[in-house]
C-alpha cells in the first residue's frame, strides 16, 4: 500500500468512550446456494462498514435501492447475523449475549417502518398494538400500561388518546398510522430509534408534519436516530451527519450542511445534481446523470465500486485498488482515490465541477 496520509482500511476506527452504537467492519453477506445446497457465492449487501453513533445524535444513511442500506439496518436491529464484524451497543456486542441479550437490546431500540399500513397488524386496535411491547417487557399492571400508552399517544399528537385507542389501522389516515408506528417505537423509551424511510409513503403536507414530530421527539428524549432514506432533500431537516452508501459501502461521511454544500465523492455529486428543487428553469435543461446502473452485489467491480460509472476515474488505480477513507476536508471523509495526494492533478476536473 501507499505511505499516504489515510486511515488504513484494516485498522479499527477510533473508539470514543461515549459511543452509543459502534459498527465495526460490518459485513452482511447473504449466501447464494446452487440447487438448494452447495455455496455458490455471496450477495455482499454490506461490505466493511464502520461508524460510531453517539447518544442524542441523528444520522442519515442515504443510498439508492439495492445499495445495502436496509441490510445494514436489519443488522443494527439484530434481525440478521452479520457475516463478519461487530455491532457494539454501549460497548457490548449485540449478538454475544444470545437470545436473552438480543431481547434486552431490542427493547432499547425503536423501529419506525416505511409503510405504516403494512407495519400495523390490521386486526389489532391501536391499544393492543401499543400494549403488546409493554407486556413483552413485563409490565404487569393494566392501569400502568394504559397510562403509558396515553402518555406516548399525547406525545405523538394522537390526542385525545381515547378517540384513537379502540380504532383499527384502516380507520386512520396515513399520517395518523405513521404516528401510531412512532408511538409503538417510542413506548419502551428506547435510546436509539431506527427510522426506515419514515415519510416516503406520505403526502408532501403530512411529510413535513411527521418529520417535525420525529425531530421534536428526538430532541426531547435525547435520542440517537438512524434515519435511512433515499431522499437527500429531507435529511437536512433531520440529521446532523449524513453517510452516503453505494453498493454496500459507505463512500462519504460528513456533517449535513457540509455534505450538501461541499460534496466530495463523484457519486454524491451526481446524486445531488439529480435532485430538483421546484423551479420552472428545470424544464429547459437536461440533467447530467452518470451512465449505467449500480453493480451487482454478487460480483461487485474490483477497486472502487463506482469506477465503471465515474467520469473522473483513474485507470490502473480506481479499477484495481479499493479506496480507503480520506479526510478531504476537516471532519469530512470520503472513499475516493482522487483525494490521495498522488492524484492532485486528476482531482482538478472534479474540483472544477464541484465549483459549478
Amino acid at each position, binding site marked *: 500500500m501507499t505511505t499516504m496520509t489515510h486511515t488504513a482500511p484494516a485498522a479499527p476506527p477510533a473508539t470514543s468512550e461515549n459511543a452509543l452504537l459502534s459498527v465495526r467492519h460490518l459485513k452482511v453477506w447473504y449466501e447464494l446456494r446452487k440447487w438448494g445446497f452447495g455455496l455458490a457465492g455471496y450477495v455482499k449487501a454490506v461490505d466493511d462498514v464502520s461508524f460510531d453513533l453517539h447518544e442524542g445524535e441523528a444520522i442519515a444513511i442515504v443510498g439508492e435501492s439495492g445499495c445495502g442500506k436496509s441490510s445494514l439496518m436489519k443488522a443494527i436491529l439484530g434481525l440478521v447475523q452479520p457475516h463478519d464484524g461487530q455491532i457494539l451497543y454501549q460497548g457490548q456486542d449485540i449478538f454475544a449475549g444470545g437470545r436473552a441479550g438480543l431481547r434486552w437490546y431490542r427493547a432499547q431500540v425503536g423501529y419506525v417502518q416505511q409503510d405504516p399500513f403494512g407495519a400495523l397488524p390490521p386486526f389489532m386496535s391501536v391499544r393492543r398494538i401499543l400494549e403488546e411491547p409493554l407486556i413483552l417487557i413485563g409490565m404487569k399492571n393494566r392501569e400502568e400500561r394504559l397510562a403509558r400508552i396515553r402518555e406516548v399517544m399525547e406525545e405523538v399528537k394522537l390526542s385525545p388518546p381515547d378517540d384513537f385507542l379502540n380504532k383499527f389501522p384502516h380507520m386512520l389516515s396515513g399520517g395518523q398510522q405513521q404516528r401510531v408506528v412512532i408511538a409503538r417505537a417510542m413506548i419502551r423509551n428506547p435510546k436509539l430509534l431506527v427510522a426506515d424511510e419514515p415519510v416516503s409513503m406520505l403526502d408532501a403536507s403530512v411529510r413535513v408534519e411527521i418529520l417535525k414530530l420525529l425531530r421534536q421527539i428526538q430532541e426531547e428524549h435525547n435520542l440517537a436516530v438512524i434515519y435511512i432514506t433515499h431522499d437527500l432533500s429531507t435529511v437536512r431537516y433531520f440529521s446532523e451527519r449524513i453517510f452516503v452508501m453505494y453498493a454496500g459501502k459507505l463512500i462519504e461521511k460528513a456533517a449535513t450542511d457540509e455534505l450538501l454544500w461541499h460534496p466530495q465523492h463523484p457519486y454524491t455529486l451526481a446524486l445531488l445534481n439529480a435532485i*430538483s428543487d421546484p423551479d*420552472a428553469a428545470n424544464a429547459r435543461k*437536461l440533467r447530467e446523470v452518470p451512465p449505467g446502473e449500480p453493480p451487482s452485489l454478487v460480483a461487485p467491480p474490483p477497486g472502487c465500486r463506482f469506477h465503471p460509472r465515474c467520469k473522473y476515474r483513474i485507470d490502473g488505480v480506481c479499477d484495481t485498488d479499493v479506496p480507503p477513507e480520506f479526510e478531504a476536508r476537516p471532519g469530512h471523509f470520503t472513499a475516493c482515490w482522487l483525494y490521495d495526494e498522488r492524484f492532485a492533478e486528476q482531482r482538478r476536473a472534479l474540483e472544477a465541477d464541484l465549483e459549478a
Partner: protein
Amino acid sequence: MTGQPATSAQPVLKTEDLVLYFRTTKGIVQAVDHVDFELAESRAVVVIGESGCGKTSFAKAVLRLLPRNVDTYRGRVYLDGEDIMALNDEEFRLRIRWAKLSLVPQAAMNALNPVLRVSDQVAEPLLIHSHDISKEEALERAREMFRYVGVPESFLHRYPFELSGGMRQRVAIAMALITNPRLIILDEPTSALDVLTQANIMNVLKKIKWETGTSYMLITHDVATSSELADDVAVMYAGQMVEHSDAESFFSEPLHPYARMLMAAVPKLRGDADLEFIPGQPPSLLDPPSGCRFAERCPFRFDKCAQDPPMFMVGDRKVKCWLFEKEAQGVYGSTPAAVATGD
C-alpha cells in the same frame, strides 16, 4: 418565450364540466367534480395534488378507462376540437385510445405483461391500431422506439422480469409513444424510482418533447420533480381544479392558498426556508362542503368562502379562490351557479 398558455390556437385537450362520480357502499364519491381544463399544443401540463384529490380519476375520465362502479360520468372532452365524449366505446377504442391518447400507467414497471417479450408488448398497440402494418414493420418501429427512450436493442427479446425498474419504465414509455399519439398521459411516472433513474427518465421525456412536440399530461404528487417537465401547472384539491398557471409564474408565486401552502411544504435541498405543513385533512369526497373545499384549512378564509368560488382569470392564470375576485378579468368555464343547477 415565457410560458404563456396559448389561448388562441386550438387546444389539444379541453374538458368542459367533466364529472366522474363513483358509487361505493358508503355513498357517492365525487372524485372529479366539474373540471374545466385545457392544454395547448406541444406543451406539458403537470397535474399536482395529494393522494385522493382525484388526479388519477381525472386522467381516467379523459381516457375513458372507467371502473365498474361509476355513478355519474358526463361533461365534454375535446381532443383537437373533436368531442370524444360523443363517440361510442368501440369508436373510442379504435380511434382515440392509444391512437391519439396514450397512457403510461402508475407503477408502469409492474404494468407490463410478465409472459410476453417486451418487443411484442411495445409493438402491440401499432398492430392493433394500424391495419396495414406487418409484424416485422411493427417490430422495427419498436426497435426505433427503444433507441429513442434509451433501452439497449439487445433487450428487445427479453421478458420484463429481466429488466431493472428504470428500464421497464422506459419500455412503458416506448409503448405509449409508438403510435405517435397527440397526447401522452403519465401517471406518477417516476415515483417508485431512485433519484438517478428518475433524472434519467425525465431527461428522456424532455428530449422526446423537444424533438417531437408531443403534449404531455403528467400526474404527480412530487412537486419538485414535476418542475422538470412542466410548461403549465394545474393543482387539484378534493376533486376540483383550483389553480392553472404557467410554470414560470407558478413556481415563483403560486396563487391559490392551498398551492402556496403545498409549495411551502416541499423540502428544498439547500434552501433556508423553514418547512410548513398544512393543518387538518382534505374533506371527504363523500360529502364535500358546499363552499370552497379548502376553506376549513385556509388561513385567509373570510365570509365569502361559504360559497363555491368560480375559476377566476387573473391574467393568463386561473384560480378558484374568492381572494382574486377583485383583480380577476373574468371567469373561466362553468360558473358556480351553473354548477349548482347541474347537480
